[in-house]
């Protein structure tokens, strides 16, 4: 993309409500527009399209974030950012010529009388209104008024043209003609344009990129669709272009998914309101035990939970968290499904896998309100591979080439984030995970023993488990997740959609406590305290202290090994439930042929990744609520993942076994 002409940087706009509180119209909008580009903003009514346009015009100010045009902040309106308003905003007491003259005379103060007059007449001629120049707007049709408004805007040669539903009030015929005219005019003038519209066809005909906004409140950018149709475009020719219907259905699909999401949220919250009343009174009477049964597997990932319980972050909000320990992921998931557990700290891929019914048990509507930890995985191989000089992926690939027997690697759970990372890593080195490797599902606690018994050649697990194996001289580290996808989501909170809707306050208490716990875990000065806490019997056990002290040493067990930071428990956007990361997980599910790539991915991701809950929890914890960034995710293999175009990403991946896309 060319150098950004206009930058919308992390803009949030909220309006105070008359009864207190505020309505967040737009949240964390990031957008870059190149010079000469034509951008359309599309979305359902009330999603804040016009608010965004007004912010760009400078008619309104963002609460946080800012807008830069040519590297200067937009603070007030000005003629270099001319707006064509929704209802034309022509002055009814002035003729067409006077309306245009008002703009020209005010903006071109230095120019001579003759030059100004010439400009006015040229603008009137441009939109073909010479015969109506002396008429008042009241005597003109809607289409003619719109042409006057466009002529007025273009007469002052703005750098940025902002159109607020410019053709909304016109009949279809006038609409088509004006669209064509506008396109020609904009192309000739080379003016950068942002247009708000409801019409998918209009957006496709005119734009270079279509920016789709999600539903309000707190609307964000859901998707950006580049319109690759060749220019100059002709209305009818464009419709015959082979890409046209693909693009069109992509946009319509987005809008439909947003609408369904809206309805879905409504159906979820309506019974909650009814159900909330008795439970809140019961709570007041002290009848409802505010208890949450939370499942987990011991590991460094549970540190925020341990700290939260230790410091009483949950108790202080009158919430009792009952941690339930498991040793097998499968077992925990079954209890979560059956309702014996309310919530669980699961692998980052679990919510989507549950929704898609990947384990062959039928779909289960899981949601995730937050990411608990990021990073923290390592891949280790048995000591004998080290003796074979296998010190990295390429050496491993080389070694596997002529081998008859597949490499036996253990994973904690099928379809877990760890398996996805491991497969991705292997594939990026030219190893086909389905042919060259045999995966064994083992409890993380049993991996070391299996390695000792020679049942496996290596495994992927949390760094603590790997460090123990290294410590005992059984294995060495061949890669960490920093070599695959630094900052990937590792453990997330997962629960049933209905449970979340009915126990939102409880869930937010849990999330905010985990966030505050994570904040403490991330603090380097707390390291010794953390080790002390985690080596208690209910977490990792007393024998873990030494490994915990040394778990960061992932080398061959000698002192010179690489020391790595702990898992990421907190920090910039660490807790965000990011649908873009979910989209990557979906591509992997599809890549290994476990399920077709879902055609309604945005709807699915919107249902599963509940950023609204995450924002609320962050706010409850007294932290700024951040929205996920929209930049492509950089992966260590060199192929970045763009959430707006997952299918292309799938095509580029090695060993892709993706089947046809399922249409929603």
């Amino acid at each position, binding site marked *: 993309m060319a150098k950004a002409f206009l930058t919308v940087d992390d803009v949030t706009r909220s309006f105070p409500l008359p009864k207190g509180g505020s309505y967040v119209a737009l949240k964390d909008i990031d957008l870059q527009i190149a010079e000469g580009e034509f951008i359309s903003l599309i979305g359902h009514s009330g999603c804040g399209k016009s608010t965004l346009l007004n912010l760009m*015009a400078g*008619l309104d100010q963002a609460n946080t974030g800012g807008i830069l045009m040519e590297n200067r902040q937009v603070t*007030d*309106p*000005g*003629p270099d*950012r*001319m*707006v064509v*308003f929704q*209802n034309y*905003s022509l*002055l*009814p*007491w*002035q003729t067409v010529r006077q309306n245009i003259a*008002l*703009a020209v*005379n*005010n*903006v071109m103060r230095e120019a001579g009388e003759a030059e100004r007059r010439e400009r006015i007449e040229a603008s009137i001629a441009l939109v073909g209104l010479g015969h109506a120049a002396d008429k*008042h707007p009241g005597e003109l049709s809607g289409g003619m008024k719109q042409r006057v408004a466009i002529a007025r805007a273009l007469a*002052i040669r703005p750098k940025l043209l902002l159109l607020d539903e410019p053709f909304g009030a016109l009949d279809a015929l006038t609409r088509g003609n004006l669209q064509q005219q506008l396109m020609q005019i904009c192309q000739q003038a080379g003016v950068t344009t942002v247009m708000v519209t409801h019409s998918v066809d209009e957006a496709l005909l005119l734009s270079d990129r279509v920016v789709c906004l999600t539903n309000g409140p707190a609307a964000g950018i859901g998707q950006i669709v580049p319109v690759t149709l060749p220019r100059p475009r002709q209305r009818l020719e464009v419709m015959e272009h082979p890409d046209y219907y693909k693009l069109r259905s992509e946009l319509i699909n987005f809008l439909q998914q947003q609408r369904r999401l809206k309805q879905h949220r409504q159906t979820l919250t309506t019974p909650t309101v009814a159900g909330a009343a008795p439970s809140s009174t019961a709570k007041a009477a002290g009848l409802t035990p505010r208890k949450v049964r939370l499942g987990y597997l011991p590991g460094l990932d549970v540190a925020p939970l341990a700290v939260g319980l230790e410091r009483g972050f949950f108790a202080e909000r009158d919430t009792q968290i009952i941690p339930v320990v498991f040793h097998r992921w499968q077992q925990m998931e079954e209890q979560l499904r059956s309702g014996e557990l309310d919530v669980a700290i699961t692998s980052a891929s679990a919510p989507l896998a549950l929704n898609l019914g990947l384990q062959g048990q039928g779909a289960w509507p899981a949601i995730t309100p937050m990411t608990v930890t990021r990073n923290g995985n390592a891949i280790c191989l048995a000591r004998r591979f080290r003796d074979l000089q296998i010190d990295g992926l390429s050496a491993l690939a080389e070694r596997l080439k002529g081998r008859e027997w597949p490499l036996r690697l253990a994973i904690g759970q099928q379809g877990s984030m760890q398996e996805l990372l491991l497969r991705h890593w292997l594939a990026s080195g030219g190893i086909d995970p389905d042919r060259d490797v045999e995966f064994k599902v083992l409890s993380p606690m049993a991996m070391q023993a299996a390695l000792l018994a020679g049942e496996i050649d290596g495994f992927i697990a949390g760094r603590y488990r790997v460090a123990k194996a290294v410590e005992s001289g059984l294995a060495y580290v061949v890669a960490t997740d920093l070599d695959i996808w630094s900052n990937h989501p590792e453990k997330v909170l997962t629960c049933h959609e209905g449970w979340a809707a009915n126990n939102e306050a409880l869930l937010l208490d849990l999330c905010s406590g985990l966030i505050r716990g994570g904040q403490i875990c991330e603090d380097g000065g707390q390291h010794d305290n953390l080790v002390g806490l985690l080596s208690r019997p209910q977490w990792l056990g007393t024998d873990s202290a030494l490994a915990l002290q040394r778990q960061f040493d992932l080398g061959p067990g000698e002192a010179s090994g690489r020391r790595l930071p702990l898992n990421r428990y907190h920090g910039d956007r660490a807790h965000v439930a990011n649908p873009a990361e979910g989209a990557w997980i979906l591509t992997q599910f599809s890549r290994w042929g476990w399920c077709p790539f879902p055609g309604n991915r945005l709807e699915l991701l919107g249902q599963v990744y509940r950023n609204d809950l995450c924002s609320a929890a962050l706010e409850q914890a007294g932290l700024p609520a951040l929205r996920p960034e929209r930049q492509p995710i950089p992966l260590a293999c060199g192929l970045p993942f763009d959430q707006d175009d997952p299918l292309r990403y799938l095509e580029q991946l090695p060993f892709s076994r993706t089947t046809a896309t399922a249409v929603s």
Partner: protein
Amino acid sequence: MTSLSTTTRRQRRGSAQWLRSPLVSQIKAPVVCIGLTLALWQFLSLFSSEGFPGPITVIAQTWDPYIVNPFFDDGGTAKGLGLQLLISLQRVAVGYTLAAVVGIAAGLAIGLNRFLRRGFDPLIQVLRTVPPLAWLPISLLLFQQADTAAIFVIFITAIWPIIINTAVGINEIPQDYTNVARVLRLRKRSYLRDILMPATAPYVFTGLRIAIGLAWLAIVAAEMLKADGGIGFFIWDAYNAGGDSSTSQIILAIVVIGLVGLALDRLVGSVGDLVAKGGK
């Protein structure tokens, strides 16, 4: 039988033709109703023991000189109705013009400034309800002179609706127009001339129209109490004279006052329509 009925119907339709012309159908109702009112008045006056005149008596008693010669001048205060009207209109013209100038200026200031608007609003709301005559004593104390005092009463009565409507007009300038002004960065003068004035004109003229009615109301009252000359004075003078035709003179004056008030209202209204045409 059939043929007979058709002819009568046709005849009836023919005779009713003129009754359906637009002019007639428009004035038919007022003529009938006013005629009935006058007839009732005439009828009731027959039973009046004090000799209260009926409409016919009123016209007969005031025909000469009041109706046929409205501009006679016998010196002193004995003047024709037309001259008395001119005196009143002159006072109204002065007081009303002052009220319009000051009122629009004050309305502009209050409309444009939030602080002033909030500060003065209670005061304006209280003062605008004060009846015109309540101002007269203060006015006399201030100016010592009956003529000036009457003008001041007109001024103080007429100014409030002008201020209020001007201020409201400025407040009600559509956001669209102010947005255009902001985007174009219109200069103050251009903003006043091209947007503020045309957009508020309809409101200002509504205020002016209400004000002229109030001014006319006030002048008659003020003149009755303290003045030499003027239509109000004429009424009071006729009452004090207590002659045979006094009541008829008073009634005639009332009719004239009503007609002039109506004419003034329509005058300001049509000027407003003319000036503010574009704004609608």
